């Protein structure tokens, strides 16, 4: 008798679990609100795919200066959710219709415009209840900028020798690379939902900041001074006592 009761309770439990899985599955299909996150530390891995060499280019880039930056880059995004409820009274004072408008607009740095709109609608007899929420994503960014002289731009006529002195006309100093790899971005914190394209846009913005910082820090000037000395030392190794960079 006791054994039978035990079996029945096990069967009941199994049926409940199966029913729950079916309900979850159906709910996921039709409502989309029940979602299972990444469970039990299940490790995500990419599949093995080929690395295809699509281009090979000969270069002669003499890098003399490297700028390095580590910074926290934060991007914010504001949303305005608004409910508009308005009443239209008829001559007898009856309210004909009440409509509720719910909408949301994403506004970046234009919160004042939204507030002005709210004030205007309030004057028109619309009662608006609005709340501002903000999304945020913060990356720790490691950026590297490399600069120097492109020696392939030195033509034969740009070099002349006078006894033991080499005169060389150097090209303009230039930035060769703004290096930012996936491992150079550490996602520190986020609030809200950020799609792949939105995160990509934030990263591009971050690298542009690093580029501007490198220029403000004087990377080009550094190439034109100590970088030039490096190039002269390089050419001196060819056996010249003096190298004059023009």
């Amino acid at each position, binding site marked *: 008798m006791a054994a039978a009761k035990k079996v029945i309770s096990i069967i009941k439990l199994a049926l409940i679990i199966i029913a729950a899985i079916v309900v979850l599955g159906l709910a996921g299909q039709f409502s989309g609100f029940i979602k*299972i996150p990444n469970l039990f530390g299940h490790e995500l891995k990419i599949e093995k795919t080929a690395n295809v*060499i699509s281009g090979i280019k000969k270069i002669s*880039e003499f890098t003399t200066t490297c700028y390095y930056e580590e910074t926290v880059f934060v991007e914010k995004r504001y949303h305005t959710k608004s409910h508009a409820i308005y009443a239209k009274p008829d001559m007898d004072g009856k309210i004909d219709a009440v409509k509720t408008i719910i909408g949301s607009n994403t506004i970046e740095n234009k919160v004042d415009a939204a507030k002005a709109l709210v004030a205007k609608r309030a004057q028109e007899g619309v009662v608006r209840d609005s709340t501002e929420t903000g999304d945020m994503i913060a990356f720790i960014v490691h950026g590297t900028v490399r600069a120097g002289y492109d020696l392939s731009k030195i033509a034969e006529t740009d070099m002349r020798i006078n006894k033991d002195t080499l005169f060389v006309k150097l090209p303009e100093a230039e930035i060769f690379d703004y290096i930012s790899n996936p491992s150079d971005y550490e996602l520190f914190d986020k609030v809200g939902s950020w799609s792949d394209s939105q995160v990509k846009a934030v990263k591009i913005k971050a690298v542009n900041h690093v580029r501007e910082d490198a220029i403000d*820090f004087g*990377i080009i000037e550094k190439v034109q001074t100590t970088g030039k000395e490096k190039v002269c030392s390089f050419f001196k190794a060819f056996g010249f006592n003096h190298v004059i960079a023009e």
Partner: protein
Amino acid sequence: MKKTIALFSLLLIIFSCKSNEDLMNKKIQSIKDMAELGTVEYTVRKVIKADDKIFGNKLGERKFLWTSVAYLKAGIDLNDFSTSDVDADSENKTVTVTLPKAKILSFNMPAESIDSVYSRVSGVRTKFSPEEREQLKQQAEVAIREDIPNFGILQDAEKNAKDFFTVMFSRLGYETITINFK
């Protein structure tokens, strides 16, 4: 007296704390001199794909497909390159140059080169979070880096370095030019 000390301490704490905004704007910057001659650039394309399932396909699955591009530069480090590495005989117009071995100088897989091509989430699975997407992109970067020895980029870098120095010494009047690597 005690009240005064407490008030002073409170004011000290309030005004000594920086806002998160100020801390966010701090950055570490440094600039370094170097002397590296890049002689070859490789463009490497990779398809990044993942098919994430739990309990087979019973609860749904997550798939995505990205294309990515990485730019590799290789060349030689000339920081220690000096006249001792050049054995020149201007009378006989011969020169022997000993260069350091080629190495990878830069690896760049910029965010703008990683494009989402396909993404699908089914069943009760959640979408890929930003953390998961970052993790997968970093795996792709590692996969390319690990394959570098098989590309032949270092051999190309040395070959191009040889060509560069041959042209340079030719312009200086040398006829017999020998380039060796350490």
